[in-house]
């Protein structure tokens, strides 16, 4: 699996990988620039108070003050708090940066063969000078200069640059696979491409910006969370700035550095420090999954999805149908048909072909034969002929789409006529056998199968029944989705009876049969009118309106340019089942934020119990009772709290990057579990942590 290869850099290793950590440490200091810090209000406030206390410390250093060593340590840890936050963000960005570097290499300067004028003369120009609407010729061995749409020709293209998949893919004009991406390479044949993206805004450009995090916009939930954190910070400003006056009334005084320590430990620095790292890591998880989200908003929306529209073919059923029965025409035995079908499929490596060989062996006892022994040549399937087979001496066997085979036996070559961008087969005059084949194939179609006609030496033998096979494990996936509260709807062009049969077998909640693009669009609008968020994936140009309408539209990378523009995510692997994982990644992103926010706020309880008694002990010795952790001394208590506050950021970076694991157990159970871990845990952990640090601080004689 390609995605597996790309996922090799796991989170745990990212924290240890010097290639990421070393630049991240440097970046942590660069990010101290207040102009960058202000984007993160909580950490900005910490930086400001750290700077203020530093100034006070320096003044005291000159004039000579008390407790200089203690003050120095507090200030040091204040700066560490800020640096750790920056480091977390830098580590998260680091992985994307590495990926962006390799992408940039593909964006090397290339020449383009620009076709000009009505006579389409070819001129060599620089790739960067191309404008939207220009038409270029790309031949075998050339790099495609920019994103575009194939307007003429068929070619195999190596898209490893963006997908990591080295097996070439077919790009052709007219169909649903007409989009080409700048930076990919044509391996064979030639195509004419109309440029659709200006320089700087091509797919690869966008991908680079995305993985670098350069254009990262705050997502709606992140904005809301930032408001909450800023609000809490202000509340704690009130709580701390009033304390000196209260202390003065009680006849005591409190130093600025102690107040600052209380303030910084109380404000939600943990989540404030990790918030942007969580967001970057969420996008990064998608990228490593070979899905490109055009905005963070889309990733978040994925977590909120209520309804999933899934295309039957390729998502619910194996895109490749399997042979399940042989239907010979009159005068031909099943054995005979099986023999011919097997011969035609011997060298056919497609799943359909292999399934015919398997069927012939299992049901008709025909063993595999060696192509070399037969001295046969394989006639591969092409988009033009739409059939395949072998020629061995005088023997010639073909199997393929019914129309193609019928025209093959009637005239020897398929008659096609080009009209605009569509290619239509002319209906050949049918023989009697031809009519019989047509009847059989119609029956198969009605039952939800796909017919494949077989001919030997120009004579029709019969039809292979290819059946939709529901993917293994898909039923369980749908059950899981149901537990998540997500409704699945299967979209298919099949008739309602076939659709119902497959829907029942796959366990989807609902289906839309004989779906036209308009039906899809209407279904999405209806769901949205009920307040639901809809996700779908699609590839064709006619999917574009629905992709644009859906809250989460995942376009297949193999699809048309129109589809890729309309969707808010692109799946580079073109695997529609991934929609389910995309939803999980969205949920994980939201959960991680919620969990760390809860943890951060719950931490305050212990910090209060550490600092409040320490602060007031000088004038109200009775408050020693509140020192429930029995911390060694007031100074050690304050220092321990601030050290814990800084170290917890580092400790939680792996969780922020990896994300909180999502389990499809329903919201109630999920909340119970997470509240227990991050809520209750958030109350208990700092008590233990601060006590442990206090023991160390006392042992080292730091305070």
């Amino acid at each position, binding site marked *: 699996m390609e995605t597996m290869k790309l996922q090799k850099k796991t989170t745990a290793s990212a924290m240890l990988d010097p290639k990421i950590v070393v630049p991240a440490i440097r970046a942590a200091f660069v990010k101290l620039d207040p102009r960058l810090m202000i984007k993160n209000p909580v950490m900005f406030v910490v930086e400001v108070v750290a700077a203020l206390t530093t100034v006070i410390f320096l003044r005291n250093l000159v004039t000579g003050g008390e407790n200089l060593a203690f003050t120095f340590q507090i200030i040091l840890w204040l700066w560490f708090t800020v640096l750790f936050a920056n480091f977390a963000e830098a580590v998260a960005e680091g992985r994307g940066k590495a990926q962006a570097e390799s992408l940039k290499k593909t964006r090397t300067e290339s020449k383009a063969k620009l076709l000009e004028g009505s006579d389409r003369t070819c001129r060599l120009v620089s790739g960067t000078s191309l404008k939207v609407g220009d038409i270029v010729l790309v031949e075998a061995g050339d790099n495609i200069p920019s994103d575009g749409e194939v307007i003429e020709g068929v070619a195999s293209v190596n898209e490893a640059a963006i997908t990591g998949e080295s097996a070439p893919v077919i790009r052709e004009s007219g169909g649903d696979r007409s989009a080409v991406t700048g930076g990919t390479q044509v391996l064979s044949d030639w195509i004419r491409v109309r440029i659709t993206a200006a320089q700087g805004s091509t797919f690869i450009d966008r991908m680079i910006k995305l993985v670098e995090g350069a254009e990262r916009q705050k997502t709606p939930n992140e904005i809301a969370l930032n408001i909450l954190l800023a609000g809490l910070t202000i509340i704690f400003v009130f709580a701390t700035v009033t304390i000196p*006056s209260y202390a003065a009334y009680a006849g005591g005084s409190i130093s600025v550095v102690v107040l600052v320590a209380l303030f910084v430990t109380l404000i939600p620095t943990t989540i404030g420090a990790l918030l942007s790292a969580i967001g970057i890591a969420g996008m990064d998880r998608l990228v490593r999954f070979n899905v490109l989200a055009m905005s963070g908003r889309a990733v978040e929306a994925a977590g909120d999805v209520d309804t999933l529209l899934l295309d039957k073919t390729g998502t619910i059923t194996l895109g490749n149908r399997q042979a399940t029965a042989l239907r010979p025409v009159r005068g031909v035995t099943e054995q005979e048909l099986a023999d011919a079908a097997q011969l035609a499929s011997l060298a056919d490596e497609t799943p359909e072909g292999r399934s015919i060989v398997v069927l012939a062996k299992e049901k008709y006892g025909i063993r595999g034969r060696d192509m070399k022994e037969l001295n046969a040549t394989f006639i591969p399937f092409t988009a033009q002929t739409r059939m395949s087979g072998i020629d061995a001496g005088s023997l010639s066997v073909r199997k393929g789409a019914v129309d193609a085979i019928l025209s093959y036996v009637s005239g020897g070559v398929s008659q096609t006529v080009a009209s605009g961008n569509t290619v239509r087969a002319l209906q050949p005059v049918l023989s009697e056998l031809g009519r019989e084949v047509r009847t059989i194939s119609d029956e198969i179609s009605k039952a939800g199968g796909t017919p494949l006609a077989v001919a030997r030496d120009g004579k029709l033998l019969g039809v292979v029944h290819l059946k939709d096979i529901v993917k293994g494990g898909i039923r369980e996936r749908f059950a899981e989705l149901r537990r998540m509260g997500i409704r699945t709807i299967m979209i298919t062009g099949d008739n309602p009876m076939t659709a119902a049969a497959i829907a029942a077998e796959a366990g989807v909640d609902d289906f839309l049969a004989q779906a036209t693009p308009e039906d899809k669009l209407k279904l999405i609008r209806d769901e949205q009118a009920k*307040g639901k968020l809809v996700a779908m994936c699609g590839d064709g140009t006619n999917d574009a309106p629905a992709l644009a309408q859906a809250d989460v539209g995942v376009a297949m990378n193999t699809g048309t340019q129109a589809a890729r523009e309309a969707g808010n995510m692109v799946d580079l692997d073109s695997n529609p089942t991934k929609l389910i994982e995309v939803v999980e990644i969205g949920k994980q992103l939201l959960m991680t934020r919620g969990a760390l926010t809860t943890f951060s706020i719950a931490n305050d309880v212990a910090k209060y119990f550490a600092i409040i008694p320490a602060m007031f002990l000088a004038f109200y010795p009775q*408050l020693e009772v509140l020192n429930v952790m029995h911390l060694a001394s007031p100074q050690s208590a304050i220092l321990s709290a601030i050290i814990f506050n800084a170290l917890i950021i580092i400790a939680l970076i792996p969780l922020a990057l990896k994300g909180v694991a999502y389990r499809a157990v329903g*919201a*109630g159970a999920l909340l119970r579990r997470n509240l227990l871990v991050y809520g209750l845990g958030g109350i208990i952990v700092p008590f233990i942590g601060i006590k442990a640090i206090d023991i160390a601080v006392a042992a080292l004689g730091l305070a």
Partner: protein
Amino acid sequence: MTLIGWIQILLYCAIVVALVKPLGWYMTCVFNGERTFMSPILRPVETVLYRIGGVDEKREQHWLTYTVAMLLFHVGGFLIIYGLMRLQALLPFNPAEQGAVAPDLSFNTAISFITNTNWQNYGGESTLSYLTQMAGLTHQNFLSAATGIALAVALIRGFSRSSMRTIGNFWVDVTRCTLYVLLPICIVYTLFLVWQGMPQTLGAYVEATTLEGAKQTIAVGPVASQVAIKMLGTNGGGFFNANAAHPFENPTALSNFVQMISIFAIGAALTNVFGRMVGNERQGWAILAVMGVLFLSGVAVTYWAEANGTSTLASLGLTGGNMEGKEVRFGIVASSLFAVITTAASCGAVNAMHDSFTAIGGMIPLINMQLGEIIVGGVGAGLYGMLLFVVLAIFVAGLMVGRTPEYVGKKIEAREVKMAMLAILVLPLMYLGWTAVAVVLPSAVASMANAGPHGFTEVLYAFTSATGNNGSAFAGLTGNTFFYNLTLASSMFVGRFFMIVPVMAMAGSLAAKKSIPPSAGTLPTTGSLFVGLVVGVILIIGGLTFFPALALGPIVEHLAMNANALF
């Protein structure tokens, strides 16, 4: 603590809970504009009022219009009270010949009554004429209560409506609330109080000769009618200076019990209105459960603290708990319960002096108010205050189920969080801020009756009570000074209106959103998990802010007291 004491407490809770459903149903009908059994009598009055006021009852308002209408309405209320107090010497119904009230005290009292605070810097029987009491205070008791309820209903509409621009009509809501809910109950309630022995007269103060032959003036007046709405509308401003500890303002144990019930009745029933309007009564019960948990914890602590008394009292041979500052007629249970109810509910009526409670017993009323008076709370204000915390709790924890947080079908997004934070922010700003100023200002410190932590608590309590629009006083503090009149008035004003405006903005933004049907992925908001979550968020976000101040006030006082140091 005694069994009979706990039975009293539980009986009280049972009656309040029993009233929730019927009263909730009735109020839902009223605010949905449906016909009720009162309509035959009241509908004609209602239509006449609309005609006089030029109100089109069919025309609903955008949240901004609704809020502006509410604010204008209060400007009017302020002018009426201020005018009456300044001019009462020239006006009728003044048998005791009370003179004009000082400008700063008039200002404080006017703000106090329009904000449903009813802080008493005045002594009713020695300062105010009957006209001021009736047309000024009683009248605002009705309208400030009706306003609170109307605002809560407007916020509920925000949750229950889908894709709408309007949240109701302020004039209609206030009119219907006053006519259909407050007035009928108060009429019956007043008669009950008169039966219990409360005065209701426009006659002059009574001159009496005591057994020793001394002359005594006994203050009377239209007491019962004012006390009814004072309790039902969680206003709390007493007719007499001693408030509900005065025998004429709270004559019997039964009147005491019914007064306590009436404080909670509407506030508790509003949770049911919420449940009904959002289409699931369990949502309302869950909110009431949150309030119930916090309430009973508070009652338990205060009752325990008061029943156990202090080591100092014990060393003097005084057993049986702390009776200082309590009416012998009510005793420890009814006084502790009353203190917790009145501060939980933003009422502020007192039947015992909170200043004389033990440090811990007096801390609970303080905490109740600092949490924002959301434990049942002021009529309306309690519910919308609680919903602010629910929104925050849902937002923080809701993300943990992997979805944009939703509450009763509404997504909680940036705007809601912003408004909730704005509304909650102003509370600590006012009471922590003004306390910080007061405790270092020599003239303000001079108002304290006690030194040390206890004096600190008196000041903290005063500003907390004012900001929370509670109005109960810790006593001890001499509040009728220029400084306190103005600062307390500003706390009351900010605490009320700076909270209301964001709440209404939130109502408007919620109403405009689509309602999302619940699914298995939706955070359940009716179970014990939700209740525990909200309680936790209230205690951590709401409570921790005050921990330093509490540590320097009641906590240190309690610890010192255990070491026999008194303040």
